[in-house]
């Protein structure tokens, strides 16, 4: 299991130094050092994020966009500067295109209930793929139910890859919306999104990409991708929970009706008529998660302070090493072997239920996700009730993968 000799340190990437940014990584679990391999569910936070939130809470908290007093102005400036950094981070054309939401789920629901609900008609089609997270399935099912539109599901193949031709062949004149993951949360597959978006656009189909699993691993440029909407969450990119972003093309956002009504999203209210605020506030009713937004801005600073190419090379090396190490374990089957993946390995082990494996690994200090990963159709496709999933972040090490493998060996010995 020790393949130390073949491990090349990634140039320009000092993983020990990166780990020092993350206080949680130095704790122990059940007497063992923590190996946190559940990053696709939620990544740990660096000091930069923790400190930004702490500083705001201690010194600058007030409601934003409402007061003329100093604290309100400071809070507003911090929050809005986070929006600016997020706009740059994904290369949006303007800050008006960055809508703060609770997370990817809320972003997709916003598009479904505002854009889709007001435009879909009976007989129209919404196209998704078979590997979507429940949050990119259920909002579309709901709006199809409300409008009489039909949900169409494009197939995946036995490697968990999404054949672009098969998806494109399902795009027709009836297709009004195409929504898919940029990266699959259950399998790690990177979808051919650029090609799919291009094909959709040429047919006049509105496109949404679920970027929850992509933003921490891949550079995302929404103008290059060409999509109409891009949704992502803060906590999967080293930021806080309860905050995320819906990017939308400004022209589209302008045309869309507000989703929720309340404060912040209005210009003028009387009992006869309300005039809605402009972008992005039109979609941000109520007092938002201010500290979350500020923390997310700090997460962008953290990511962009790193050599992203080197970080990506390190994550790719982790994926290669984990794939090789785990494949050599008898009875272990990797679920999802697409040629283009992010650093995530989903797997089953003969005679060992994922839930038992999760408990046994936890005893070794190794945190993995076990279950259906909110992607039950993916589990059905591969005919497994659940898998174990080790998902790596830029701070993970080869030694942690060795510990994962040792834990799997222990579980096999115990249960078979």
């Amino acid at each position: 299991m020790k393949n130390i000799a073949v491990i090349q340190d990634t140039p320009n990437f000092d993983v020990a130094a990166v780990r020092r940014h993350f206080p949680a990584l130095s704790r122990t679990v059940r007497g063992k050092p923590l190996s946190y391999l559940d990053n696709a569910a939620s990544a740990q936070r660096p000091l930069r994020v923790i400190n930004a939130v702490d500083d705001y809470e201690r010194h600058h908290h007030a409601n934003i966009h409402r007061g003329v007093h100093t604290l309100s102005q400071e809070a507003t400036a911090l929050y809005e500067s986070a929006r600016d950094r997020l706009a740059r981070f994904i290369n949006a054309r303007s800050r008006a295109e960055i809508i703060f939401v609770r997370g990817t789920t809320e972003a997709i629901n916003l598009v479904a209930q505002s854009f889709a609900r007001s435009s879909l008609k009976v007989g129209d089609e919404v196209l998704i793929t078979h590997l979507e997270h429940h949050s990119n399935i259920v909002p579309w099912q709901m709006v199809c139910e409300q409008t009489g539109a039909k949900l169409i599901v494009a197939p995946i193949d036995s490697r968990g890859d999404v054949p672009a031709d098969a998806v494109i062949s399902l795009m027709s004149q009836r297709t009004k919306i195409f929504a898919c993951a940029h990266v699959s949360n259950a399998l790690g597959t990177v979808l051919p999104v650029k090609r799919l978006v291009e094909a959709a656009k040429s047919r006049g189909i509105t496109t949404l990409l679920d970027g929850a699993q992509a933003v921490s691993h891949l550079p995302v440029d929404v103008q290059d991708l060409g999509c109409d909407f891009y949704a992502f969450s803060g906590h999967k990119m080293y930021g806080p929970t309860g905050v995320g972003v819906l990017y939308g093309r400004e022209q589209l956002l302008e045309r869309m009706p507000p989703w929720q009504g309340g404060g912040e999203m209005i210009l003028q209210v009387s009992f006869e008529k309300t005039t809605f605020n402009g972008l992005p506030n039109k979609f941000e009713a109520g007092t938002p998660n201010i500290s979350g937004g500020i923390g997310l801005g700090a997460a962008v600073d953290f990511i962009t302070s790193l050599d992203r190419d080197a970080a990506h090379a390190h994550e790719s090396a982790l994926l290669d090493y984990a794939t090789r190490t785990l494949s050599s374990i008898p009875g272990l089957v990797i679920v999802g072997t697409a040629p283009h993946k992010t650093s995530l390995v989903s797997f089953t082990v003969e005679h060992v239920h994922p839930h038992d494996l999760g408990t046994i690994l936890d005893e070794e200090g190794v945190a993995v996700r076990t279950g259906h990963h909110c992607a039950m159709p993916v589990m059905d496709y591969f005919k497994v009730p659940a898998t174990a999933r080790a998902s790596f972040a830029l701070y993970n090490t080869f030694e942690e993968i060795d510990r994962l493998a040792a834990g799997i060996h222990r579980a096999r010995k115990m249960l078979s």
Partner: protein
Amino acid sequence: MELDDLYRDVILDHNRSPRNFGGLEPADARAEGFNPLCGDRLTLRLRMAHDKIEEIRFEGQGCAISTASASLMTEAVKGKTRAQALRLFEDIHALLTDDGATGGDDLGKLAALSGVREYPARVKCASLCWHTLAAALGGHAATTGAAPAAAVASVSTE
């Protein structure tokens, strides 16, 4: 808390060779349990003689804790009356959730489940079969007034 206290020999044995595993024809009552958290599914079938559980079998897929718990349960409730079985359910529930509870005097092999208490995320694995049994017995009771038709109930732990 040691892992060996969760995966005791009795549990490992019943996981490897579950007792009373498979279908049952004819059956008076059937119930299905589903734990959406982990995807565990369990089908329980009962044959009653008067008020006693004459035969009970289960099938499905689940983790070691869920499989062993179901296997141990079928052994424990066979021959018991409906009321006795439901009382045992209460004892097991206490054993799995109450600190310090012994779960009654006479749990026998079922006492091996007490290690689960220290793993809150796994309590549902051990209790799924018991909730399913309660549903099956409830369903049975609901139809005993009429001709003995198969009762179907389903239970979900979330």
